[in-house]
């Protein structure tokens, strides 16, 4: 019912938008483009929760339009353009694959502001937003290292892009901080959301001896397979304990609300900009545990001393004392990345195309 209601709202807003243009309005019109429906209980659901925080914060001072189930590619261009035409002043496009469509439409509508998640290309009116997911994955690695009995961790990745690879490496850093014997094997699903494939990959990991599973894909399928087979795992994007009460150790929870609110406030105050640099770097929001854009759900299905160590890792990252990518760092084929005393900077994270020690196999080319 609720979803249908949203659809009707979106449809009606298309109909009335020309009339709204003529009257002076103080309302800020905000558009959202979703990859799936919030029913995925993962990535898009987390954005939906963020949107609800926007609604709560601004009440009647915002008018929100949402388009769900938008495939990445030419369809996205059409949808984003339509939202811009309707007079939305700021449009949040919430999937990696909307990067080129967003840039294309942004060129056509220089007065509309765009916020793209989670890409790396910015222009005068396209900013980017991202979460330091890898910080949560370090804590996952710590828990995995303490909980595993087979010393085999199964990891399901979406695509071999730097965002996912830095997560795997952060997991490996956490893992090796407590357990040098355990290794991570990675299966690429080549999709963000496909419960059948994610389930197949999880089954294979378990059949190959993994007892802890981690994922960088969006559905709860992996955790459900873990639950069925007596393995443990971590939830993605939102708390997935409802799907796997006995299997979920904790989930890294994406909290987009504060970022949305900050950006809409900037727009209302006329302060929204992406800076003048060639890279428009100041238009990039990349928050993690310290800014509450990433939070961890309750630690469960683990002994209290493990939970304590996980909490300590969380606190260390949050306060900035614990550096995840501190040297000496070596790739899994023995090449040195940085020596002792140095730390990888953000630019180096986005250039990651190698696995650190603790991960088996090679990054697909």
């Amino acid at each position, binding site marked *: 019912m609720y*979803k249908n209601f949203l659809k009707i709202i979106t449809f009606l807003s298309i109909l009335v938008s020309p009339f709204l243009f003529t009257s002076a309005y103080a309302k800020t019109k905000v558009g959202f483009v979703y990859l799936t429906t*919030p029913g995925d209980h993962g990535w898009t659901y987390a954005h939906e929760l963020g949107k609800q925080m926007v609604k709560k914060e601004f009440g009647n001072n915002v008018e929100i339009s949402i388009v769900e189930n938008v495939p990445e590619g030419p369809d996205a261009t059409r949808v984003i353009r339509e939202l811009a035409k309707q007079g939305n002043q700021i449009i949040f496009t919430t999937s990696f694959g909307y990067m080129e469509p967003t840039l294309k439409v942004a060129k056509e509508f220089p007065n509309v502001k765009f916020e793209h998640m989670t890409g790396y290309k910015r222009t005068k009116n396209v900013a980017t937003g991202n979460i330091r997911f890898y910080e949560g994955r370090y804590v996952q690695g710590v828990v995995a290292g303490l909980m595993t009995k087979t010393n085999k961790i199964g990891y399901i990745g979406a695509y071999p892009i730097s965002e996912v690879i830095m997560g795997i490496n952060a997991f490996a850093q956490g893992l090796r901080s407590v357990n040098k014997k355990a290794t991570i094997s990675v299966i690429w699903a080549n999709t963000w959301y496909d419960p059948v494939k994610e389930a197949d990959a999880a089954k294979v990991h378990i059949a190959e001896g993994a007892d802890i599973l981690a994922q960088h894909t969006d559905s*709860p399928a992996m955790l459900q397979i873990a639950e069925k087979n007596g393995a443990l795992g971590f939830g993605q994007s939102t708390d997935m304990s409802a799907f796997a009460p006995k299997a979920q150790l904790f989930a890294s929870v994406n909290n987009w609300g504060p970022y949305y609110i900050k950006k809409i406030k900037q727009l209302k105050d006329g302060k929204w900009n992406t800076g003048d640099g060639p890279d428009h770097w100041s238009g990039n929001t990349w928050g993690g545990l310290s800014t509450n854009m990433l939070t961890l759900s309750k630690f469960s299905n683990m002994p209290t001393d493990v939970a304590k160590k996980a909490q300590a890792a969380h606190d260390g990252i949050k306060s900035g004392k614990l550096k995840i990518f501190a040297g000496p760092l070596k790739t899994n084929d023995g090449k040195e990345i940085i020596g002792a005393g140095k730390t990888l900077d953000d630019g180096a994270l986005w250039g990651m195309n190698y696995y650190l020690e603790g991960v088996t196999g090679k990054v697909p080319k």
Partner: protein
Amino acid sequence: MENLLITILLTSIPILLAGLGELVTEKSGVLNLGVEGMMLCGAVAALGSVLIFGNPYIGILFGAVAGILISTVFSFFTITLMTNQVATGLGLTIFATALTGLIGEPFVGKTAASLPKLEIIFLSDIPYLGKILFSNDILVYFAIFLIFFIHFGFQNTKIGIIIRAVGDNHDSAHSIGYSVKLVRWISTSFGGMCAGMGGAYIPLALTPHWSEGMTAGKGWIALALVVFASWMPIRLLIGALIFGGITILQFVAQARGWDVPSQFLNMLPYLTTILALALISFKLRNNNYAPACLGKHFLGNK
């Protein structure tokens, strides 16, 4: 290893069921390219009914009925109105993909109960084999039963021979008094039922979810498999296991760190389909495996 073999077996069940149904349909001379669409209908009906009634066995029933219903649409167009079978079958799949997306929207993100495993006493205690073959859910046993049922049916029963006659020479079958259209309606419905059950198996046993287009090409593979098996049920089992094996192999290769690009492995099931079709079509030129009237209209007055 055991666990991997079970995973492979379970992965091949949807294509095996759908393939068996399509085999019977094609034996009667009807080429239904709507397998993918019928599977989706079965999947969404199964998941929806399990969410409502809470019993996975009801899901099998609803999946089968949904498959039959959607296949009668196809029968009505192609057998009664005599539209082009290829175009109608493709249309059916495109229609069903969108329709199931619409029907399935309320089910997204909900979890349905899975089919329970039924262990067969004594047999399930055999080391290795027992766990792989005799402690599965009901649809696995049903699929294996169906292979032999169809094989035996075509060889030894009157109904089986009538279906073959209709598929091989509809004019002769008609002239000795069989209703070609009725036989084709029934065979197509049987195909729809099997495809529906094959689709139902995905949310009922493989992953307890609905997602749009979740059959992800399994229907097309089932279609190719029928040709690959040269219309023989037992070869169909072998083919289905090969395809199930390749699907799982692409993950195993990655988990074990074999140095093969994952995109290439993703492509393998489809590549194998094309290769199989190419090889078979070489062989087909001088044999008579394919039903002679496959895809042809019956213009008789009955």
